[in-house]
């Protein structure tokens, strides 16, 4: 595993323990079984009972059409984010400052491609094909996480993406390990484990820079300054404006609100920033004894909306890159299909 071959410590307040707890809960639920819940004629009632008992809905089960559509949209958006998310970090593979860092980064970007494939496979259990989903991404009808529409301008950005962006992603995704849809929950357990290695390597890059030369430390701080608020925006609009949340909570697809998760992320980062020796660029950031949480400045949600609508710094570049790779690879995919067809034909003749 390239992601963890360095001696550095884990960032304090890591989430791997929660992933392991979710995995244990998943196993326990499977052992418990659906027990007393009897399959009934009333499919909707049965579905509701299974969800209420914290058992998993599986592909063979009946499910409400809106539940299926919500999951397809969410899992596909997650898969697209992994695939598009390869670009900002991939931008630094060729210039990584040591061979070890190059190897770790290359392996990390490769992991993201693997997560993408794994998630597309989870979405396919809901009766949609990967090709359809890729088309929806390429023609702009499905989105990916807006964070990847920001540019990676320095090597420290590779560290900041690992620490903040992967960190926010994990805070978002750890509850999904307990999602009511079985294939998604299981995919998320595996993804979260790898993401926690990613977060650790990003943290370690920043730690090295922050304790390096003055130019390296400045590079690290400048990067955190740029990535802090976009990372906070990754949790989505504030609860009052979130359109999908209530129903998803009822279905146990989503378990915490956007604002709850954002708070959890801020509370986690403050201690980590102190250990890094880097400054979180928020003059209002302070401990609130009463709430037992940090007060902080909200990200600019107008900016988030602009980026979601396609007008972030790199939206066009990211989509153009993906479309070009897809179209330039068309002749290769056609050749592979033609070759496979010829082979199948030969085998049929031989048999």
């Amino acid at each position, binding site marked *: 595993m*390239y992601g963890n071959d360095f001696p550095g410590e884990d960032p304090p307040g890591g989430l791997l323990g929660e992933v392991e707890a979710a995995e244990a809960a998943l196993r326990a639920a499977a052992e418990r079984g659906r027990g007393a819940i009897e399959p009934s004629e009333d499919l909707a009632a049965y579905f509701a009972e299974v969800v209420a008992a914290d058992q998993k809905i599986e592909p063979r089960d009946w499910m409400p059409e809106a539940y299926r559509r919500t999951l397809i949209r969410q899992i596909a958006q997650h898969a697209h984010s992994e*695939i598009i998310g*390869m*670009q900002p970090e*991939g931008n630094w*593979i*060729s*210039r*990584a*400052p*040591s*061979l*070890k*860092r*190059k*190897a770790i980064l*290359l*392996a990390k*970007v*490769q992991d993201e*491609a*693997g997560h*993408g*494939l794994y998630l597309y496979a989870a979405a396919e259990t809901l009766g949609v094909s990967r090709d359809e989903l890729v088309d929806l991404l390429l023609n702009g009808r499905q989105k990916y996480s807006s964070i990847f529409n920001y540019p990676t301008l320095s*090597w420290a950005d590779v560290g900041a993406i690992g620490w903040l962006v992967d960190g926010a992603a994990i805070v978002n995704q750890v509850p999904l390990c307990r999602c009511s849809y079985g294939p998604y929950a299981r995919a998320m357990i595996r993804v979260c484990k790898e993401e926690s290695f990613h977060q650790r390597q990003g943290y370690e890059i920043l730690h*090295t820079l922050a304790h*390096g*030369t003055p*130019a*390296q430390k400045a590079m690290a701080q400048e990067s955190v300054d740029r990535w802090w608020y976009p990372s906070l925006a990754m949790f989505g609009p504030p609860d009052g404006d979130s359109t999908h949340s209530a129903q998803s909570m009822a279905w146990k697809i989503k378990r915490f609100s956007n604002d709850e998760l954002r708070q959890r992320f801020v509370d986690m980062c403050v201690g980590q920033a102190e250990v890094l020796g880097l400054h979180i660029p928020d003059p209002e950031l302070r401990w609130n004894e009463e709430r037992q949480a940090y007060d902080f400045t909200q990200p600019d949600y107008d900016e988030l909306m602009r980026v979601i609508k396609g007008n972030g710094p790199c939206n066009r570049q990211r989509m153009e*890159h993906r479309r*070009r*790779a897809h179209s*330039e*690879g*068309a*002749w*290769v*995919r*056609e*050749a*592979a299909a*033609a*070759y496979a067809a*010829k082979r199948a034909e030969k085998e049929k003749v031989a048999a």
Partner: protein
Amino acid sequence: MNGPFAFTLALGDDALVAAQRLAEWTTRAPEMEEDIALANIALDQLGAARLLLSYAGELEGAGRDEDALAFLRDDREFRNCLLVELPNDDFAVTMAKLLVLSAYQVPLYTALADCPDERLAAIGGKARKESAYHLDHAALWVKRLGDGTEESHRRMQAGVDQIWPYADELFAAWPEAPVDPATLRSDFDHTVSAVLAEATLTVPEVGWTPVGGRDGVHTEHLSYLLAEMQVLHRAHPGARW
């Protein structure tokens, strides 16, 4: 510059420059599975490069580690073959390059695994298994493309024609090296011609066989590749990463 240091350095540079080129495919491959496969092969090459360059640094005894050798030498000091520095071009050219490189590295690392130098033998033992996978992967694609569609056949033949002249340099005699590459040629010819035949492709006529990489006289491409690879490391002299 001769003996095991020069040989180890040459092999390390082959692997490093190959890794740098293969990694350029990341996020650009024709299908997502291939993105992962090419990154895997790049990682293997990079892993071999790190072992070889670290050992080369020890053999030289001048205190240079893998990063000093990778980031602080100019193009004229690199000893990689010309093949690996050629631009990726389209996927067919990349697969032609990978076929030639891996059909050379498999017998090379296999022979190295039995050489008297224990360190090189250990590196060869590890790398030959990886190279066998690279060869499988490249051979499969050359066959798919060669015997796929009309367009893919045309592109694959053009890729082989373009790359073929650069194969000769790999097997230039080096009698004092731990493994003399000249002894690997027949193995290579056997492997590659079988793949090309199955792929319905023609082995090109060789008229022109460029050399120079092992003496540090490269194509125009290497300097650009290194400029990009080395820019950040060189901008912060003495920094740790």
